[in-house]
């Protein structure tokens, strides 16, 4: 089976030309999912029966007339998007029995466009993590090297796309959780501007930072999915009413004259040699295509990690207070009293990383510390946003390594959570400022994929599409696939 068939464009083309039926494509997908599962553990729930009937319905509709823009295309959701009637666990024991009667806006959009949901992807519990090792359902393995992490928290989504099980999967990005796993897995991950995509039905981690994202093999594919799920939703008060992304002109615009900023803080001491080289090569390619590189200073970057690790856990500590064993989710056995009900249900239901972040966040908001930590972090946030705004008066996009390293070994960073937090240094500032960002594959280091991060000003996804797609027109990194395996 040709690996080409696992891009969105190829699938759409084959489906519309009648070269393959939705049902047949779905069967292939389900087979590949079944083969991938023991190796990668990328799915928490597989939806064979419903996927088949959705596919059949697509085929029937196509026979009648015009169909949705994604009709018959199989995909997976990160398991934090509520899907009515389908288990939605958020990677946690707390929700291991949770079947919501409502769907996320993102799911509704994809359903309406005719996508075929084949499963719910594994993830770091409650989206907290950068390695997908913190899932109640076991870690996800990187298809490029099964002894390594796929990145997180959208590790399952990235692995599924890397292994060419699905052409695209949804993810969420709060501090890099779409971009970083895309980088680790050699695929493309796109986080839109905050407010571009509705958060209704997306289980919240940090409300002012969370944004739904897309993982696929190309920028063009990501852009197409993004336009399906973007748009104002009155059910989300942080959802914005802005013009749709003008995708077509962005795809055709040339790289010539594109001004690319190179923030020196993104190329700090922690960047692995192989990663640095691959990224510099990518920048050189941009120059060859007629772009210019401008040195940029983002001095506020120094505080982006502390600010993020105050704000995100603080909001999370509040968002996760609803998980108390009373109305849904995990409840401990034989609670002695109310306090016991809360404390044991939550201690049993939440994994270690989630508990750690809840404690951090609770502390950051607590009496006497609010001004020094939370409020100050929000002030730093404004400083960071201003840094970026200043940069974007001089350049169109910023470029640098998505992550300082390539995918690390499973278990390697578990003993040192702080080291893992520090690795988010290039990605968290983007969420703090609400900007759009994308990671595209730009090479390899020791056989493992390296990701190039591109960031633009708010609402300027079009510039990311131009920069990312232009790069993918003249390079082949995004076509590389991990070796097909049939055993661990």
């Amino acid at each position, binding site marked *: 089976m040709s690996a080409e068939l696992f891009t969105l464009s190829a699938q759409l083309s084959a489906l519309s030309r009648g070269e393959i039926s939705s049902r047949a494509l779905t069967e292939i997908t389900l087979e590949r999912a079944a083969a991938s599962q023991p190796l990668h553990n990328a799915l928490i729930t597989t939806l064979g029966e419903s996927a088949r009937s959705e596919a059949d319905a697509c085929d029937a509709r196509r026979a009648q007339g015009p169909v949705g823009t994604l009709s018959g295309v199989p995909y997976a959701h990160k398991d934090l998007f509520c899907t009515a009637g389908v288990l939605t666990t958020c990677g946690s024991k707390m929700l291991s029995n949770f079947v919501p009667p409502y769907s996320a806006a993102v799911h509704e959009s994809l359903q309406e466009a005719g996508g075929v949901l084949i499963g719910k992807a594994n993830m770091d519990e409650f989206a907290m993590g950068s390695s997908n090792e913190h899932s109640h359902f076991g870690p996800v393995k990187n298809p490029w090297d099964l002894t390594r992490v796929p990145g997180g928290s959208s590790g399952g989504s990235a692995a599924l796309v890397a292994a060419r099980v699905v052409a695209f999967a949804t993810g969420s990005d709060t501090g890099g959780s779409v971009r970083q796993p895309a980088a680790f897995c050699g695929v493309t991950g796109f986080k839109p501007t905050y407010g571009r995509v509705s958060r209704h039905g997306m289980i919240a981690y940090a409300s002012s930072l969370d944004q739904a994202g897309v993982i696929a093999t190309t920028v063009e594919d990501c852009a197409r999915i993004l336009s399906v799920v973007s748009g104002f939703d009155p059910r989300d008060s942080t959802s*914005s009413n802005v013009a749709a992304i003008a995708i077509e002109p962005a795809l055709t615009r040339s790289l010539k004259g594109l001004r690319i900023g190179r923030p020196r803080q993104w190329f700090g001491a922690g960047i692995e040699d192989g990663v640095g080289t691959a990224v510099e090569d990518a920048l050189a390619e941009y120059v060859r295509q007629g772009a210019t590189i401008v040195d940029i200073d983002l001095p506020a970057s120094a505080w982006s990690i502390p600010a993020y690790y105050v704000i995100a856990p603080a909001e999370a500590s509040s968002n996760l207070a609803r998980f108390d064993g009373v109305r849904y989710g995990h409840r401990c056995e034989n*609670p002695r009293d109310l306090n016991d009900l809360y404390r044991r249900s939550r*201690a049993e239901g939440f994994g270690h990383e989630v508990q750690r972040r809840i404690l*951090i966040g609770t502390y950051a908001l607590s009496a006497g510390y609010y001004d020094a930590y939370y409020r100050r972090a*929000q*002030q730093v946030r404004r400083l960071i946003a201003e840094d970026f705004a200043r940069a974007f008066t001089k350049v169109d996009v910023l470029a640098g390594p998505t992550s300082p390293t390539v995918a690390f070994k499973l278990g390697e960073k578990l003993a040192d959570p702080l080291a893992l937090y520090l690795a988010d240094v290039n990605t968290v500032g983007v969420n703090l*400022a609400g900007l759009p960002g994308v990671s595209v594959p730009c090479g390899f280091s020791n056989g493992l994929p390296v990701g190039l991060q591109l960031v633009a000003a708010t609402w300027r996804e079009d510039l990311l599409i131009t920069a990312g797609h232009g790069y993918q027109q003249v390079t082949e990194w995004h076509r590389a696939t991990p070796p097909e395996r049939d055993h661990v």
Partner: protein
Amino acid sequence: MSVDRALVRSIAELARLSISPQHEEAAAIELAAVLDLFEALSAAPVDALQPLSHPGDPELRLRDDVAVAGDQRNAFEVLAPAMSGGYYLVPKVIE
């Protein structure tokens, strides 16, 4: 920043998480390391800046005051760990 077990216990109580005595020590060390990270914020030149709560500084949108009858009550009951006579049940609370 030093974090003792008493502090861990009080934060755990606020967050309604039970931490076993064996884990309190480990939690204290982990928390201390993260709190050291926070100290960096005090050096940031932000005293004159307004906190940024919402990127893009949006405005709150208002919804028309129309009541919509729910139709998912049965689905919610199915999700409930303990329910009787329409009430959610928790261990008796004395006020």
